[in-house]
């Protein structure tokens, strides 16, 4: 190590010790982003910002929330909502952001799928991103339990019961997760710990990993062009900003992101102030009651599609119980997106509109997820059950067909 003689108490001395300028260059002013992108490339920064809102609003809720079955409901619905100055605002900001963050995650995910931003060197970005989806889901679920209303309670009862494993009857596991025979005080307190400490810690770690996996392969662009970043960066630094195909992350790319963020904030705060109800189920304003299931229970909108695959199969087939088949499809639906890069057999990175069969696959998948979401909210009666069953079947069929469809596209193009 070169000994440093400059004083610790000087800007120069601090720079010598930390090399902040170099760090800033690598992370910001010489982190190159392609020019050929659109507003969908701003979703990462929108997500990072929404996550920050969740942390800040969460800190303020944490100061008055009480993780005790006797106190939780009132600490939210009386103390925070009525007594704490702006408590209602922090709660609505937290609840709406928790819902909106999933909307942006889905947009972010399907942007990646559409433009092929998950393969040929970008697999780790995709996998770390899906890891974030899973941890955010766990965070959403554990947070939903905390107000201790009827929906909180029964969502907790149903989801923890999934760990019984259907006909496997792994009953001991459920009671271990709950810390009791039913969802109760021990369950609430431990999920409180998970929600405010362990899962956020993991999420922050995985966000850092997600950024890191992106830094080396760089972000994809609208035509999926393979850019020589060194050559283009040289052009930009030499002053040929017009000819260069890239821009620095800071200040150029982020200034565009801020414009998108501005529009996002208008949408977000409109919801917070005028339409917060959509994130507040009326059933959850009844205190939790372990002896009475609400007449119809359903998860938040962002879990509806996978919930519908759980109850899609409503009759026994192939020698298996309906509930077990649903459980298997549900488990599959949670993890299948992770292996997307390996199911896509097309060797080229191209946007979906340059891959005609995949383009159709993409929109059918979106449509199917929408149908599953709509029917996940409806009571499972009569024709609803049938639609759910067909949409669940289509969901499986789409995944089975993905390798063949992507291969056929590549063959038609002459790439295989």
């Amino acid at each position: 190590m070169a000994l440093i003689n400059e004083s610790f108490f000087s800007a120069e001395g601090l720079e010598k010790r930390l090399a902040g300028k170099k760090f800033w260059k690598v992370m910001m002013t010489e982190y190159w982003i392609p020019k050929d992108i659109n507003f969908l490339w701003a979703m990462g920064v929108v997500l990072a910002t929404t996550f920050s809102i969740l942390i800040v609003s969460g800190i303020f809720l944490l100061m008055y929330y009480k993780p005790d079955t006797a106190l939780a409901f009132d600490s939210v619905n009386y103390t925070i909502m009525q007594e704490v100055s702006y408590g209602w605002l922090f709660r609505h900001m937290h609840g709406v952001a928790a819902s909106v963050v999933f909307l942006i995650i889905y947009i972010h995910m399907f942007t990646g799928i559409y433009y092929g931003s998950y393969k040929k060197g970008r697999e780790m970005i995709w996998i770390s991103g899906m890891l974030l989806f899973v941890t955010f889901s766990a965070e959403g679920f554990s947070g939903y339990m905390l107000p201790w209303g009827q929906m909180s309670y029964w969502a907790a009862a149903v989801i923890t019961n999934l760990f019984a494993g259907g006909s496997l009857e792994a009953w001991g596991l459920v009671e271990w997760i709950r810390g009791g025979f039913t969802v109760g005080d021990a369950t609430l307190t431990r999920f409180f710990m998970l929600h405010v400490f362990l899962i956020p810690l993991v999420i922050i770690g995985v966000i850092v990993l997600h950024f890191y996996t992106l830094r080396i392969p760089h972000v994809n662009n609208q035509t999926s062009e393979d850019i020589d970043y060194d050559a283009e960066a040289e052009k930009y630094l030499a002053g040929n900003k017009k000819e260069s195909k890239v821009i620095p992350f800071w200040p150029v790319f982020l200034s565009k992101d801020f414009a998108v963020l501005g529009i996002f904030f208008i949408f977000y705060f409109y919801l917070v102030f005028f339409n917060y109800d959509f994130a507040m189920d009326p059933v959850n304003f009844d205190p939790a009651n372990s002896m009475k299931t609400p007449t119809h229970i359903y998860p938040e909108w962002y879990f509806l599609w996978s919930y519908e695959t759980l109850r899609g199969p409503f009759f026994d087939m192939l020698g298996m119980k309906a509930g077990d088949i649903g459980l298997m499809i549900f488990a599959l639906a949670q993890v299948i997106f992770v292996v997307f890069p390996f199911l896509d057999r097309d060797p080229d990175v191209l946007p979906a509109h340059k891959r005609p069969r995949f383009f159709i696959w993409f929109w059918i998948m979106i449509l199917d997820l929408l149908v599953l979401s709509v029917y996940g909210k409806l009571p499972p009666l009569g024709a609803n059950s049938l639609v759910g069953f067909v949409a669940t079947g289509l969901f499986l069929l789409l995944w089975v067909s993905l390798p063949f469809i992507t291969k056929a596209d590549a063959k038609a193009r002459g790439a295989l």
Partner: protein
Amino acid sequence: MSNTNRRDFLGMSFAAVAAVGGAASLVGMKQAWDPLPSVLAAGFTTIDLAKAELKPGEPKTFKWRGKPIFVLEMTKQQIADADAEGLPKEYHLNLNDKTYTLVIGICTHLGCIPAWKGIKWKCACHGGEFNPSGKQIFGPPPKPFVVPPFKVDGMVLTLGETGPESKAMIAARA
């Protein structure tokens, strides 16, 4: 050479101690999440069928370990239906010439509490249905309502303990 072996020994000793310590920590952490002794100790409930004021055909709900217990004194018609279906006598609790359905009132699909709809239990969560004997008749439930362990003393049932009647009922549903 002897130097390398000494380092190998040190390395393996370190790994062994770390593995044992790590495993022991995991066991401790697992046990910290187990239900507490007070929770386990509170797991007994008595139901006196002589004083429960049951009406045939109308189930009552009791609470045991935070779970609902459905007790239904069956009508003659319901008994005849169960016989016609071929359910064994041990499917129900037979006491003093009366026949009861005695089950944990939790849907065997995903744990919601079904509601009694005059002739059957219907689950609001995913549409599962159970007949008056507690057998699944529609939807995703994979098996009948579960029978809790109980001991019979005259007309008094102690839930949480176990006896020949509950063993026979549980066996009849296996």
